[in-house]
Structure formats: C-alpha cells, structure tokens
C-alpha cells in the first residue's frame, strides 16, 4: 500500500486542508509497518492501540480549532527514549521487560505538539554499534538491499524512514548514530548541538557526547519537528538555556556568500572513490547556489576515533553501573550472594559489544591508568575542539562525507571491533566538540545511498537546515524510495 503523503510537511498540509484525517494516515502507516516488519525488523514494539487513540485525539483537537502545525502527524521513537506505559528496551535483554514510568522530555515535547507515536524503533544495544547488528531483538536490514546493514545505532529509525514506514523518527547520536545510518539508508539526519535537546529520559550511554535528534525525509521535515524537541530542561543538568528559533522560517534563505570549508583530512585516505565523487558533485551544487568553497585543515581530527574509544567507554562504564539486577532490569536466577547477583545479572543481561565497552571503560578509569588514557583523551579532545573552532574562523560550515563507504554486508565487520569503529571516523569529531551536524542524501554508489555531512558551529541548526533545504530544492536524492517499498 502506498504512503498517504511523502513528507511531514505534506502530511501537515493535507491534515490542515482536511484531505485526510490523522486516524486515516495513522492506520495506513501502521499497516505499512506491520507489512515490512518481517523484511526489515525496524521495530521492537508497535503501539497500535495508543497510536489510534492519539490520532483520534489529534483529529478532535483539529476539529475544535486547537491544532498545531504537526498535530496528527505519525512518528516513530527510537527505543532509547523512555515512553510512559510502553516497554523501553534500549535494544537490550537487560531492559527487555522495562516499562517506563515516565516520558523522556523530547517525547513529551513531540506529544504535546500533537504527534502520534506508532511504535518503538530497533537500535544497537544501548546505542553501541554502527550496524544495528548488536540489538538483542535482531539485526535491522537496509531497505535498499536487505543483505546490507542500515548503519547504527539508530538503524531502526533510518530504515523505517527510508522505507516510508514512518514519516519521521527520533534518534540519538553519540559518535554518529544519527548521521551514519541516515547516510547508509538515504535519508536526512540531524544531530543538534550538545545541550539543545534534553537528555532526560534518554537512556544514557556517554553523557558528554549523547544528543537527541531526528531522522526525516527532508531538512524541511526536520525543521518542523526540531522545535518541539528543543529548549531548556531543568531536569538535564547540561541542557542549555538559550532561545529556540523557528527553524522553518529561514529554510529558504539565500546561500549567496556562504563559505563552506572542505576538511582536507576527510579526503586523505580510506574514503571510497565513488562516495568521494558524490560528495564533490554535491559541493558543486552548493557553488551553483552561490556558496564559496575553501579548503580547511583540522590536523587532530584523525585522532577522533581513538579519543572517542577512551572517552565513550569510560562514560558508558559509569552510566551502566546502574544496571545491578536490584531496582529494574534483568536479574539472574537464584543468586548465591550480592556479588553473584550483580555479576550474573550483568553478564547475562548485556550483549557482547556492551560488555566490551564496559570493560574498556573500566580499564581506562582504573587505578594507574586514568592519567594515561582518560585525561590524555580529554586533552586530545580539547585539541580537536580547537581545530574546529579555528576552521569556523575561516568558513561558516564544514562539508564532507558522512561515512567512508556505502552500506556493507550484514556480518562483514562484526568480528573486528576496530574495523567497525572506523565507520564513524568522519562523524565522531562533531560529538567530541559538541557541534551540530547533519547528513543529507547526495547520490548513490552501486545502488546504495551516499550521505553528505554538514557540520556547523554551536547552535547553528537554523543555518544548517537552511543549507540542507536549499540543496534539497536543487536535487531529489532525498525523495528516492527503495523499489520494494515504493
């Protein structure tokens, strides 16, 4: 069955004109989700009943003249976000029976804006992965070729949007988990500035890097949904108290005079030549739109992956200490004593990659190693951050590849953690520096999508969305749908 409309913007317009009701489109999307589940495994939990109730409520609000721009638009939530009364698993056996007693702040924000939740989307366990193969609920498949990974950790969100099972989905990005799957699935992804969207109710992985964002068909859709997700939240101690602009207002601004920086180090080695060509083509489109292009250098950026694999596991090992088999989550059978309860509950409840990261983090924080690893990494992080600050003195935003290759085969990299970690070589820098970044579709290599990454200065989301939107007015890569789901 076909989608009622291709984008959030088109759905919002159709709802406003009364061309269809939220109940009608919600039913249509729920049917698409159910039909595609065996092929893609994009969802962990469907919430049909509450979705239909929310859609009916949205229609009633509209009839009463109380509709906002996106009232009645269905969306999916990554299963890392707590949703009141709904199972929230984080892709883990540890939380396979956890029913959240509250909503994450961004879930509540999108709910009060009138969106309708269709279900909870699959993901790498605790967001640790770049292929969506580490989920306790099974791998997600790429809609462009189901033998391929969708990327990760927000693989369910990206696959679902690419196959048009949902018009848009929430996602999170700690080292590229929004942008890399968006690139591999041919959809639009935005990771806002650190602190822009509240982390309250978003299950923590690495708290100084984690940020909530969106995977959508278009930049315009992201602009419509980002507002209700953003803003100060006293419940998140790193939430930033600064005004949220109307991201839709500046989408059509001219790019005349915009200076794009091409990061030399992103093109040094390891980038697939087909992907490089697509990126260079995209840069030409920007030049046609009036942007100036100059090369910039971020010499410490090649150290971002090793820096990340000290900082992120360290924070993960601290954050995941809360899973103790006592207050919530998996508990082992007949524990002999308290230590046995902790060790077996955690040993059984966590998957292989999560245990690897906890142990990496435990080691780098342990006595005698803290200075050599953790403090050293936080110093290099400062250097990487300074590289970006210097680059933004010479240009308005950076453009380059999101991922070194298009989607790879399921199983191809799962035996070697380092090879898997290097998928995020272009995305991790923005997390280390807290910068906003996007990935937008910019073509295909071997019938698989390629993503263009845009990285901006802190709180430049409006300008980035504007740049992405103008590109999407000139190209139609973002509107391509995999044949099997057209």
């Amino acid at each position: 069955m076909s989608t009622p409309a291709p984008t959030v913007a088109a759905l919002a317009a159709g709802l406003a004109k009364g061309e269809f009701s939220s109940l009608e489109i919600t039913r249509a999307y729920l049917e698409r989700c159910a039909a595609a589940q065996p092929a893609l495994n994009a969802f962990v939990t469907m919430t049909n009943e509450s979705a239909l109730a929310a859609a009916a409520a949205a229609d009633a609000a509209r009839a009463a003249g109380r509709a906002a721009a996106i009232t009645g638009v269905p969306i999916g939530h990554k299963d890392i976000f707590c949703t009141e009364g709904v199972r929230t698993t984080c892709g883990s056996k540890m939380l396979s029976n956890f029913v959240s007693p509250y909503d994450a702040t961004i879930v509540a924000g999108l709910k009060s804006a009138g969106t309708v939740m269709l279900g909870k989307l699959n993901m790498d366990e605790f967001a640790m992965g770049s292929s969506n193969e580490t989920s306790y609920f099974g791998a997600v498949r790429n809609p462009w070729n189901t033998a391929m990974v969708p990327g990760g950790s927000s693989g369910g969100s990206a696959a679902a949007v690419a196959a048009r099972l949902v018009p848009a989905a929430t996602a999170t990005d700690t080292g590229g988990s929004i942008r890399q799957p968006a690139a591999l699935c041919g959809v639009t992804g935005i990771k806002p500035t650190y602190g822009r969207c509240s982390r309250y109710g978003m299950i923590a992985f690495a708290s100084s890097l984690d940020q909530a964002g969106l995977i959508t068909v278009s930049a315009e859709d992201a602009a419509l949904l980002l507002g209700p997700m953003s803003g100060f939240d006293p419940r998140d101690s790193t939430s930033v108290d600064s005004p949220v602009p109307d991201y839709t207002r500046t989408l059509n601004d001219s790019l005349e005079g915009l200076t794009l920086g091409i990061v030399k180090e992103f093109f040094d080695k390891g980038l697939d030549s087909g992907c490089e060509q697509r990126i260079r083509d995209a840069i030409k489109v920007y030049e046609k739109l009036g942007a100036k292009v100059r090369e910039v250098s971020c010499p410490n950026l090649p150290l971002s992956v090793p820096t990340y694999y000290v900082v992120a596991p360290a924070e993960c090992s601290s954050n995941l200490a809360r899973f103790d088999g006592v207050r919530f989550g998996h508990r082992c059978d007949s524990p002999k004593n308290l230590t046995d309860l902790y060790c077996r509950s955690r040993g059984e409840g966590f998957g292989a990659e999560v245990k690897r990261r906890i142990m990496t983090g435990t080691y780098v924080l342990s006595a005698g190693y803290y200075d050599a690893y953790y403090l050293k990494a936080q110093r290099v992080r400062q250097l990487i951050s300074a590289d970006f600050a210097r680059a933004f003195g010479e240009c308005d935003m950076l453009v380059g590849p999101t991922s070194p290759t298009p989607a790879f085969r399921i199983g191809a990299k799962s035996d070697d953690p380092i090879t898997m970690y290097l998928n995020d070589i272009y995305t991790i820098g923005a997390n280390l520096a807290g910068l906003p970044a996007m990935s937008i579709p910019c073509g295909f290599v071997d019938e698989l999508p390629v993503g263009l990454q845009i990285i901006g200065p802190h709180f430049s989301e409006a300008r980035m969305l504007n740049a992405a939107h103008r590109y999407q007015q000139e190209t139609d890569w973002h509107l391509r749908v995999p044949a099997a789901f057209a």
Partner: protein
Amino acid sequence: MSLTRADIENIARLARLELTEAEIPVYVDSLSRIFAFVGELDRAPTAGIVPMAHPLPGLAQRLRADEVTETDCREDFQRNAPKVEAGLYLVPKVIE
C-alpha cells in the same frame, strides 16, 4: 599493547561482569587490539593542554537549589523491580 587472561578477569571483576569461559579469549584479543589502537593518542602533543571538561566552551555544570522538587514515585518505580516486598527491594542476605 597486549592484555592477559588475568587482566581480563580482573577488569571483569571490577566491572561486576561474569564472563563465560568462551568469552575470555575473545576479550583478551579484542581489548588488546583496542588498547593498541588508542595508543595512537600517545603521539598527540598535549603538554600544557587542559583536559576538556564540558563539550560546550565556557560552560560548566549547572547547580540547582537544594530543594525537594520530586514527588514520591516509589510505587511506580517498584513496578519494574525484579523483587520487592513491603516497598523494599529484596537482595540476597548481605550479613551472615
């Protein structure tokens, strides 16, 4: 850098993770490779560089007033607990 079986057993103990016999050699291998990889950081000139403590420049952790703002949610929270009795979380006997 190469880790030993004893290193992995010690890290797992610190992390309160029980590993199976089959998992130990896998982690000996992969953690050794990870630490060899992050060893690249040694090359970075970081003398005099202050470790980054907040991802946004100039911002520090916000403090809040020491006031009670939360309501009692014990019943809601304990619905997810593996074992409770009379509002208390049950664990194996700690003191013999």
